[in-house]
């Protein structure tokens, strides 16, 4: 089977399932708004420090939304034991993995479509293409890692506890580089070009690694 077709098929299946129930994205969007609210109270934001603190809130909200979103990636497969069925087809496990990562990433991007404008409106930070680019680039790597580890903990007890524990350390480089990128795009000191370059490097590195690992994780 053509791997690219498999990727798109799996992604389409996931997105269509989400579209039918429409539970994840609205819930995450609400969660994000609440996170912004709490951030405001937790940090005592005013017009002076908004641009300093807003990037931090962005990443906090994104990371936790990501954990929720990726945690659910394999929920359906688990409930219906359809993962085994998928793996019995001639489709390569890497393609299946890529499809799921694509779908999960797309869901997170939809949340970002809520997060970034909301951040801009509520905290008065600039909403530029630069910011969007940085967040999107980070999402790619985070999705690859998040979905891989979601697959890893899918059949383990206490998976809700393990997923953050395993995934967050690996997301740190993305938050660091993404943080600098967003900060510099919002007017604070920092080298935007370098940060974006770094995000790209991390994306490539972790996409390669997760693709190699997918074979061992999904092949059961």
């Amino acid at each position, binding site marked *: 089977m053509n791997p690219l077709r498999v990727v798109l098929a799996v992604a389409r299946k996931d997105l269509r399932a989400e579209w039918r129930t429409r539970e994840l994205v609205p819930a995450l969007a609400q969660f994000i708004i609440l996170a912004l609210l709490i951030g405001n109270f937790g940090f005592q934001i005013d017009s002076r420090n908004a641009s300093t603190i807003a990037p931090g809130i962005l990443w906090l909200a994104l990371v936790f939304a990501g954990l929720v979103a990726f945690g659910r990636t394999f929920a359906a497969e688990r409930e219906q034991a359809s993962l085994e069925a998928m793996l019995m087809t001639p489709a390569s496990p890497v393609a299946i993995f890529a499809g799921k990562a694509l779908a999960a990433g797309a869901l997170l991007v939809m949340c970002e479509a809520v997060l970034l404008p909301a951040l801009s409106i509520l905290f008065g930070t600039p909403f530029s293409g630069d910011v969007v680019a940085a967040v999107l680039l980070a999402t790619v790597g985070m999705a690859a890692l998040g979905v891989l580890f979601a697959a*890893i903990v899918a059949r383990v007890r206490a998976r809700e506890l*393990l997923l953050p524990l395993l995934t967050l*350390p690996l997301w*740190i480089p993305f938050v660091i580089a993404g943080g600098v990128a967003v900060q510099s795009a919002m007017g604070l000191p920092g080298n935007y070009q370098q940060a974006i370059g770094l995000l790209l490097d991390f994306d490539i590195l972790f996409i390669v690694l997760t693709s190699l690992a997918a074979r061992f994780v999904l092949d*059961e």
Partner: protein
Amino acid sequence: MAVALMLLAAGAIFLYAPTDALQGPVQRIFYLHVSSAVAAYGCFAVVLVGGIIYLRNESPAADRFARAGALVGVVFTSVTLVMGMLWAKPIWGVYWTWDARLTSTLVLWIIYAGYLLVRRLAEPGRQAARIAAIVGIFGFVDVPVVHFSVTWWRTQHPGPIVVNDALPAEMLATFLFTLGCTLVLAATLIAIRYRIETLIDARQAIAEPTKLVAAPQPGAAP
């Protein structure tokens, strides 16, 4: 056998007492602190290699080495972190700063503590071993990446300078000796743990077939 080796390591601890530190006695923490860090990285390299070998040919011995390495590595990392914090307080005035080395060592600890948790929570056997191997591999890669990221981040936001390590000859000798003994201790601890894991595995191999007999299964047994 192991006791003699421990005495060797203890000997190191008392041997460098005469070599006085010039920056105050607290500086002596450095010998075991750095040795522990090196020992820990060595342990995690064992986890990495064990994991890779296991993924390649499912050798249970490789998995056992990985398990042993992870546990001993976490122990040594804990030593490194705590000793480091106790050194930092009198010297820098704070227990912690978020520079590259401290941050990546903390991340290291978290990753391999996660490794041990995964092993405990996953079904023992093939599933746990595979999962852990992957966690071990990603973890090992992540630490230098985090270290590099924080270093890079620091150049974006210049902050306090970290310690420089220029060493007079006697201190260097003491350090190398301590390092040697610590590595021997680490190897010993891994060997002991490996043996323990082997016995645990053997125990489980006996237990499982009896479980299958006790609870009758529909269909043919594998």
